[in-house]
């Protein structure tokens, strides 16, 4: 089609004029004016200033800022109103625990002069009374001394009926908390409580800030301090939080263990995993977490150091052994053993997790509580087949799936939508099919999967046969209520947490015993029995040890990570020169 010259010229002019007009019209929206200007200006001015700044000219005066990339935003900054990982680990910056844990997960006194023990009189022989001696130089960031009153107030707030704190564990097991004097706190438990080191005083509330609010409103649920804890007791102090965008913490000049070396920690909220990787590679972040294993080589190639921090999570399968609602096959130990032998978990770890972690043997791997003689079930499909035959599960109708008494060996295997979990399901399905076990795969959003029996949650209503997740409720303490008979969810107990529905009286007694054993060595002995029992009966099948992955840029120096309180030495972190 031939276009006339004049028309073409006219249209060209029209387009140009329209564009100019459009450009002129843009001041109507403030944003539009900025966008075009920006495309030219910063390319020249902004970019070089960023690259130059840390290096040469302003180096001495430049604030030392480290940028952390968090894929989830904090819900609240009040340590007792959240259990969210991203909120909890950040508390080490602006709040304080009575003791932190170092990279070997050993407690380190922070607010106390020493850790209470039977030897130093801090722990009563019956394990019910704990006496803490506070340091005399500890102060809130506004200069107010931290005293026993703050501990008593924190206890009162956790237990107040109108405060919707996330958890009262273990404060609802206490009889009382008293301040003998300004420097002595006495905690009395109703029963001996062994896991106190892991669970006591994971944060402190400033009485002088929050008490007036509580007295006036009857609750601290809506206190401004929860969103803006400008008075804190960590190496950094809260400065600013813009919803969805960023949070800024600045150095606490009054920190009693010395002012941190960095001036500021800037958290940027980036929910997308691929964007997190891009930002770390581009140097727009100095620390990130929770990567997919497949992204690790790319990150390392870009100079990001990967730190595996073990925080007690061991991914594993809980078998539904509920007396009425469980699949008959799973109540037979031989079938459970066969599943363990037929699933090549080492190959899973090598292929899907790039060999960067290990197969989990028990839920207490990497802790002193594991029986040292245990090593994961080997891969032996022939033995698995023999065990299934022995148990009477044979393929009598030739459909490729074993059966017994008219019941097919088809198991419903459910987990959350986390990618690596779904991949694991696919591998398991393939491998177990080779020994004649058919898996029916299901995956759920986490809030539906972990909902209680009352809410018909998939992990609690015994609709599944194999349930995969990891839990680490009291790390570094080994205590858990997941195996107690009293925790089996039912209409009478709709919020129970015993996913497997198993009531093994011997195991139940051992779990009850360990929770009261104040003597460390006795408790280790009990746990050796527990771990051996769960392992040999395959009540739980370990898949892999699931460390928290931290990626740290080469800009940061002195970085150590703890599994319990990851940022325990954040005051020593510095920018590498």
């Amino acid at each position, binding site marked *: 089609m031939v276009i006339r010259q004049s028309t073409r010229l006219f249209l060209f002019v029209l387009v140009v004029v329209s564009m100019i007009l459009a450009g002129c019209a843009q001041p109507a*929206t403030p944003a539009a004016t900025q966008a075009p200007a920006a495309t030219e200006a910063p390319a020249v001015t*902004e970019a070089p200033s*960023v690259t130059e700044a840390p290096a040469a000219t302003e180096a001495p005066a430049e604030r030392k800022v480290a940028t952390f990339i968090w894929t989830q935003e904090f819900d609240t900054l009040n340590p007792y109103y959240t259990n969210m990982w991203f909120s909890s680990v950040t508390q080490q910056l602006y709040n304080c625990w009575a003791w932190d844990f170092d990279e070997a997960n050993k407690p380190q006194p922070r607010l106390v002069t020493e850790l209470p023990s039977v030897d130093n009189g801090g722990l009563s022989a019956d394990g019910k009374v704990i006496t803490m001696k506070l340091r005399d130089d500890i102060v809130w960031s506004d200069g107010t001394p931290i005293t026993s009153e703050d501990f008593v107030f924190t206890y009162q707030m956790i237990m107040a*009926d109108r405060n919707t704190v996330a958890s009262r564990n273990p404060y609802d097991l206490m009889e009382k908390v008293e301040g003998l004097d300004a420097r002595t706190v006495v905690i009395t438990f109703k029963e001996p409580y062994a896991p106190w080191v892991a669970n006591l005083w994971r944060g402190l509330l400033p009485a002088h800030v929050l008490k007036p609010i509580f007295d006036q409103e009857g609750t601290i649920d*809506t206190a401004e301090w929860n969103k803006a804890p400008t008075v804190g007791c960590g190496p950094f102090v809260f400065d600013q939080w813009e919803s969805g965008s960023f949070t800024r913490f600045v150095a606490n000049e009054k920190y009693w263990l010395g002012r941190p070396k960095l001036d500021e920690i*800037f958290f940027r909220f980036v929910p997308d995993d691929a964007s997190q990787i891009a930002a770390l590679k581009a140097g727009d972040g100095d620390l990130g977490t929770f990567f997919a294993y497949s992204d690790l080589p790319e990150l390392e190639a870009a100079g990001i150091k990967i730190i595996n921090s073990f925080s007690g999570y061991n991914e594993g399968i809980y078998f539904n052994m509920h007396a009425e609602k469980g699949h008959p096959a799973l109540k037979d130990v031989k079938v459970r053993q066969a599943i363990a032998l037929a699933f090549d978990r080492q190959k899973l770890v090598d292929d899907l997790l790039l060999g960067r972690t290990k197969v989990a043997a028990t839920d207490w791997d990497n802790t002193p509580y594991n029986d040292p003689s245990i090593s994961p079930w080997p891969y032996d499909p022939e033995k698995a087949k023999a065990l299934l035959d022995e148990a009477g599960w044979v393929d009598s109708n030739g459909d490729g799936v074993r059966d017994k008494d008219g019941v097919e060996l088809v198991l419903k295997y459910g987990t959350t939508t986390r990618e690596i979990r779904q991949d694991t399901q696919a591998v398991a399905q393939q491998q177990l099919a080779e020994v004649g076990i058919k898996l029916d795969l299901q995956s759920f959003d986490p809030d539906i999967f972990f909902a209680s029996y009352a809410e018909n949650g998939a992990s609690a209503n015994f609709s599944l046969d194999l349930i995969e997740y990891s839990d680490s409720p009291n790390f570094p303490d080994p205590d858990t209520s997941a195996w107690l008979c009293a925790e089996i969810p039912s209409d009478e107990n709709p919020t129970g947490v015993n996913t497997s529905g198993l009531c093994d009286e011997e195991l139940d007694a051992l779990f009850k015993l360990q929770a009261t054993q104040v003597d460390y060595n006795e408790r280790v002995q009990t746990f050796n029995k527990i771990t051996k029992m769960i392992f040999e009966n395959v009540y739980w099948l370990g898949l892999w040890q699931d460390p928290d992955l931290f990626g740290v840029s080469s800009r940061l120096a002195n970085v150590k990570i703890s599994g319990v309180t990851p940022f325990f030495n954040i005051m020593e972190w510095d920018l590498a020169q």
Partner: protein
Amino acid sequence: MTRYILRRLLQAIPLLFVISLVLFFLMQNMGDPIATMGGRNVTRSADRERLKRQLGLDKPIIVQYLYWLAGNDWAKADLDGDGIAETPGTRRGVLRGDFGLSLVNKKPVTQVIWERLPNTLLLMLTAEAMILIFALLIGIYSALKQYSTFDNIITTITFLFYSMPVFFFALVTMYIFAVNFKKWGLPYLPTVGMFEPTAGKTPLQVAWHMVLPTATLSFGFIAGYSRYIRSAMLEAMGQDYVRTAKAKGLPKPEIVYIHALKNAALPIVTIIALDLPFLLGGAIVTERIFGWPGMGRLFLDHVSRGDTPVVMGILMMIAVAVVIFQLIADILYAWLDPRIRYT
């Protein structure tokens, strides 16, 4: 006209009421807010029971809806778990302007939304302006020059962008312009966020960080809108009145922009009026990838934690906006096309 507007607004009230009821009941199936309060751990039974009681989640759904709608300051709640309701409620209900507190962060819902709305509007209005400008230019040009080389090229390109998933476009541009450009020593764009922490939140920084998200949001829509405009313009240009205008010897711009475009604008106004309210909802994918603190991410975060008050607040805001923008569209029709009369 005033009577018409009043009648439309009155009709909206029962509609919004029904919408709120349906949404509230649907939200109850979105998962258990307390399940997510344990973080990575399973929430303890004692805490589950206490929180259900304290947050009023132990009440039947219809009662929860009633409290949401009309408040609970006339009822008492059992907070200490002894089975006796002793504490008077404090909520005033949506009808009295109280959208409640977020279950996740205990902030008032209105504050939670207000913290994000400006960011979303900044991004979405900029993108919408870009979309309209470029879609009009492309649409009109390719209608006037149907089947020309330019029309063919632009048609191909628009279809290419239209068929490209948003996340793909976003990540590809991010890797090219932010990651690789930096590696190659070229002037580069930032990856995520609204500004650099060292530079502070200046208008220039924000604008610079908006380039990629705006481009991502615009491209697919420019393609779609320009196709609508093209076909509407093609139809208008073939009408008798355009021929008459031509015969009268009117200058071409007047024919195109006044006679044809005004008539072709009707269907376009409909589409824009349908799209505008959803701008308030933000762009879930784009905001997520570029770490833009907007409404889409807010919605996703709170849906995933079963935070009924916040989710209801956002959904009701969008529902109200849909009603209002539809009304505005109807009024615009009357202005654009004098044949349409509302009495």
